[in-house]
């Protein structure tokens, strides 16, 4: 199982902060496509960075069961 974390505006849009995907492995890009379809939200990840296990990752990073993927919308700390 892959755990996906959503934050800020994406979390509100999806109505949840965490999504479980019952897949042994997926690319980050495949997870994005899955969620865009699930939430009927084609531009869901525009401007968004991805992290796997708390490190920034790319679209072609492979995610395995047990990993935590986080989608990071444009940050605004400080």
């Amino acid at each position, binding site marked *: 199982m892959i755990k996906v*974390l959503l*934050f*800020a*505006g*994406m979390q*509100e*849009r999806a*109505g*949840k902060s965490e999504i479980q995907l019952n897949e042994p492995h997926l690319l980050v890009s495949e997870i994005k496509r899955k969620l865009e379809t699930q939430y009927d939200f084609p*531009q*869901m990840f*525009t*401007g968004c960075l991805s*992290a796997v296990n*708390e*490190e920034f990752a790319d679209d072609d990073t492979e995610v395995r069961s047990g990993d935590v993927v*986080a989608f*990071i*919308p*444009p*940050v*605004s*700390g*400080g």
Partner: protein
Amino acid sequence: MKPFEITENTISVQEVVDKVIHPDAGAVNTFIGTVREMTKGKRTTYLKYEAYIPMAEKQLSKIGEEIAAEWPDSKCAITHRIGELGISEIAVVIAVSTPHRAHSFEACRYAIERIKEIVPIWKKEHWEDGSMWVGDQLETTSYSKGHPESEGESK
């Protein structure tokens, strides 16, 4: 005592400063980020900060590593607050100590700029008539009801 910390509590400036004080330091520079009332003519009533806490703390310590590599014998501590903050409350405190003053100014400035680039923290501005996640390119207009119009929205 964590040098790089996300907290839900009020930040003590002195506590952050104390983390970087040591006998070989000749300068301590601090940056204090506070909640501003007026932004582009609009009155903020409060801000809500959210973070991906474990990654945010990791990223803050990465900034500390970058500073240690760039400015020799420097020491850095950063605390960022999350949750609801009212006008003039402290959102972030950075302290950098160095042997000489010039480096402490440079490194402190560097730290706040990097926070705005690589640390997963988000702020939502709340006004009397709505709210918006700052930096959110998905929702560039304010939500008319103070929240996005989506089904299953819990709040």
